[in-house]
């Protein structure tokens, strides 16, 4: 029985709640970057153009400016990460900030210290910005409510990874010159993907048409249908149809645990049905961009030839990540801790 559940009558409330939490909204400078759901196109535009200026700095012999001198950026990672953590650290250092890295292993987290205890410690030590990753969706909101520092969500559960989506927008726009009207395919495990969710917000805010494609078990439940999705996106189970005329194809990482969890008959079948191969890519527009948020399982969700092919901008995504994160750190810096407290 596929019954149409009512549309999300909650549409307005969450945005309002986010604005309150993030301090965004009209006329106010954002204090946190937790999700892209409440970003206006102009604000995304601001991040992208700022990132453009930051990319200029990174191209110079001395890749460092003193903007955030004396500020402390803490990276608090409850999940393993290389590229995101290092990318934020490089961004912070390029802006002259001091960085402190905390990861769950080797810290008091292993002794069972609660998230809020850790956050209160950071507050007492005077962190200016906390970049955090956590396995639980919403954890950065909890932290943001308890600390006067700015919080940047570097990935929370299945929920959001806003800096990744912004760097994806940045990369696409610098290649294709626009975002509006593009057909963007998110291919694979959308259900468990925070990258997919943030890109859904980012691309749809900027006027792109997003198609979700993957096995039905790895897409948001069908019971409430496309109309019930929080985004103006469409769902297509068949990969050939999804890729037709695409400007951008983003393959998502397939966690091999999904097979054990009963969501996939086998990884082999997934590769057969959904792996991004050169033949499949040929269905997309000539010159369509190939993206992947990393880390890649080459040979599973994406063929090595495609990942390293001429249409791939995967390495560039990583490079652009630093510029985009510099932009975010810079744009948050306008609000000092004192002002934030007063705000």
């Amino acid at each position, binding site marked *: 029985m596929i019954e149409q559940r009512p549309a999300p009558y909650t549409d307005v409330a969450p945005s309002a709640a986010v604005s309150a939490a993030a301090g965004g909204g009209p006329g106010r*400078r954002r204090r946190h970057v937790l999700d892209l759901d409440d970003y206006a196109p102009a604000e995304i535009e601001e991040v992208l*153009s*700022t990132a453009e200026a930051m990319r200029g700095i990174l191209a110079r012999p001395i890749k460092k400016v003193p903007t955030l001198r004396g500020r402390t950026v803490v990276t608090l990672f409850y999940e393993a990460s290389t590229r995101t953590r290092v990318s934020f650290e490089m961004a912070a250092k390029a802006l002259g900030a001091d960085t402190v890295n905390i990861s769950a292993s080797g810290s008091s987290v292993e002794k069972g210290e609660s998230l809020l205890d850790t956050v209160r410690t950071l507050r007492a030590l005077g962190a200016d910005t906390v970049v955090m990753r956590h396995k639980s969706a919403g954890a950065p909101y909890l932290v943001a409510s308890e600390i006067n520092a700015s919080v940047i969500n570097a990935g929370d559960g299945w929920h959001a990874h806003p800096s990744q989506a912004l760097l994806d927008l940045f990369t696409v726009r610098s290649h294709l010159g626009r975002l509006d009207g593009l057909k963007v395919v998110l291919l694979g495990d959308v259900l468990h993907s925070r990258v997919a969710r943030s890109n859904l917000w980012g691309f749809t805010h900027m006027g792109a048409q997003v198609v979700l494609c993957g096995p039905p078990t790895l897409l948001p439940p069908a019971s409430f249908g496309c109309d019930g999705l929080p985004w103006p996106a469409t769902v297509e189970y068949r990969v050939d149809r999804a890729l037709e005329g695409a400007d951008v194809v983003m393959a998502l990482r397939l966690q091999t645990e999904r097979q054990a969890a009963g969501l996939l008959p086998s990884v082999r079948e997934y590769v057969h049905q959904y792996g991004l191969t050169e033949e499949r890519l040929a269905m997309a527009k000539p010159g369509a961009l190939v993206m992947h948020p990393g880390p890649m399982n080459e040979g599973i969700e994406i063929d090595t030839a495609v990942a390293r092919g001429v249409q791939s901008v995967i390495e560039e995504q990583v490079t652009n990540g630093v510029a985009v994160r510099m932009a975010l750190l810079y744009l948050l810096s306008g609000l000092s801790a004192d002002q934030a407290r007063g705000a």
Partner: protein
Amino acid sequence: MQPAQKLLGADDVRRAITRIAHEIVERNRGVEDLVLVGLRTRGVPLAHRLQRTILECEGLPVPFGELDVTLYRDDLQSTALRALQSTQIPVDISGRRVILVDDVLYTGRTVRAALDALIDLGRPRGIQLVCLVDRGHRELPIRPDYVGKNLPTAPEDTVKVRLLETDGVDEVVLLSPAGAGARAEAGRD
């Protein structure tokens, strides 16, 4: 009720630029190795005019660049965050004499930031400073090499340079608090 007081008119601005262009050429005995760098926002059109004037009298194009010093400022927390603009200097400044161009010299903090920014870009042989207006009240040991006009002001005054390229008119005006009040009142009519 006094409106904004005009300190320099279009002719004054034109003459000042022509004079400064000649001073630059004279002092540097030519234009070899020079690079003009305009400070965003209004230093950029001024630098551009200097380049044109030098081209007219010397027949040689001086390289020309634009500098955004926002990331080097020391007052990020107290000013409203401004949109970043790009820094574009088409030549390597190392070994060259940089002519830094700004509209108004006041506390010297912007120039300080610009010096840091330039030095991060390379090792120039020297840096010289042009300003259209020097209004005094320096907070740092910085002095201009070329001045369009020295204008004594009070700290609470605002000196506004308007240029054709950015504002549609060439002039320098003084907005004193009394003048500001007058304008506000006029606005109510």
